[in-house]
């Protein structure tokens, strides 16, 4: 076992522990902070796998965007130190059993499947390469999904504004 695998096991243990605490902690704010640590661990895993661009995107969008949004919504809807009621014991037992069964099934399938892993040339995850193929219009290019994603983002932006508008004051079309 070499040093890079030891680093991998450390990162994996960190991710799984933080994720487990994020779904079991009773206080909602602590749960968000554990989720934040788990997402940072996943960014570290991307660095370990040598895909720096994805790691940067993960850090910026998840850690800097989604977690901050979650914290905002928690402060708008909860008192910071509120503890959520614990789920009933029976529900926890059945959920745990279902999850363990799923883990066992999928691990069995993955373990007995042999993946053809070609040796030699590694992944060329240069930002220049990624950018060229992302907006290329030739075969294998991703220009159309890229534009569709921008339309989706615009639609969600407008949708958020419409949804979060207070009724009666800004909604011109309301009948009341």
């Amino acid at each position, binding site marked *: 076992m070499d040093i890079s695998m030891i680093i991998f096991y450390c990162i994996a243990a960190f991710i799984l522990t933080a994720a487990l605490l994020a779904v079991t902690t009773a206080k909602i704010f602590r*749960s968000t902070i554990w989720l934040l640590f788990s997402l940072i661990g996943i960014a570290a895993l991307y660095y370990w796998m040598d895909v720096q*661009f994805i790691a940067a995107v993960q850090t910026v969008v998840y850690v800097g965007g989604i977690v901050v949004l*979650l914290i905002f919504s928690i402060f708008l809807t909860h008192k910071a130190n509120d503890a959520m009621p614990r789920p009933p014991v029976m*529900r926890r037992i059945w959920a745990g059993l279902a*999850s363990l069964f799923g883990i066992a099934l999928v691990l069995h399938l993955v373990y007995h499947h042999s993946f053809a892993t070609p040796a030699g040339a590694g992944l060329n995850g240069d930002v220049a390469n990624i950018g060229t193929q992302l907006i290329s219009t030739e075969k294998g290019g991703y220009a159309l999904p890229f534009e569709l994603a921008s339309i989706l983002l615009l639609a969600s932006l407008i949708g958020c504004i419409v949804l979060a508008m207070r009724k009666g004051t800004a909604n011109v079309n309301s009948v009341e």
Partner: protein
Amino acid sequence: MSQTPLIQILFLSVGLFFIGMYGLFTRRNVITILMSIELILNSVNINFIAFNKYVYPHQLEGLFFTIFIITIAAAEAAVTIAIIINLFRSHHSVDIEDANELKW
């Protein structure tokens, strides 16, 4: 040991996926359910990157799928939080058991 660590990464992502499923089963608060969904999406992203890196190293398809999944997750989180704030305004609670008007 020169073997690629693909199988260990897959084990990690399976664990992460089912931790997210456990949260989805047990939690009854909309914000924590959203957090479980983020964990599940992240486990899928890890799978895409691992398969791209170790099984198809001469292509970049998995990276693009990951980038688009992250984009869609961000849009989804923004819309969900708008819905949560609206729900809190009308029901004074973000518990899914309290929002049962559409339940048959």
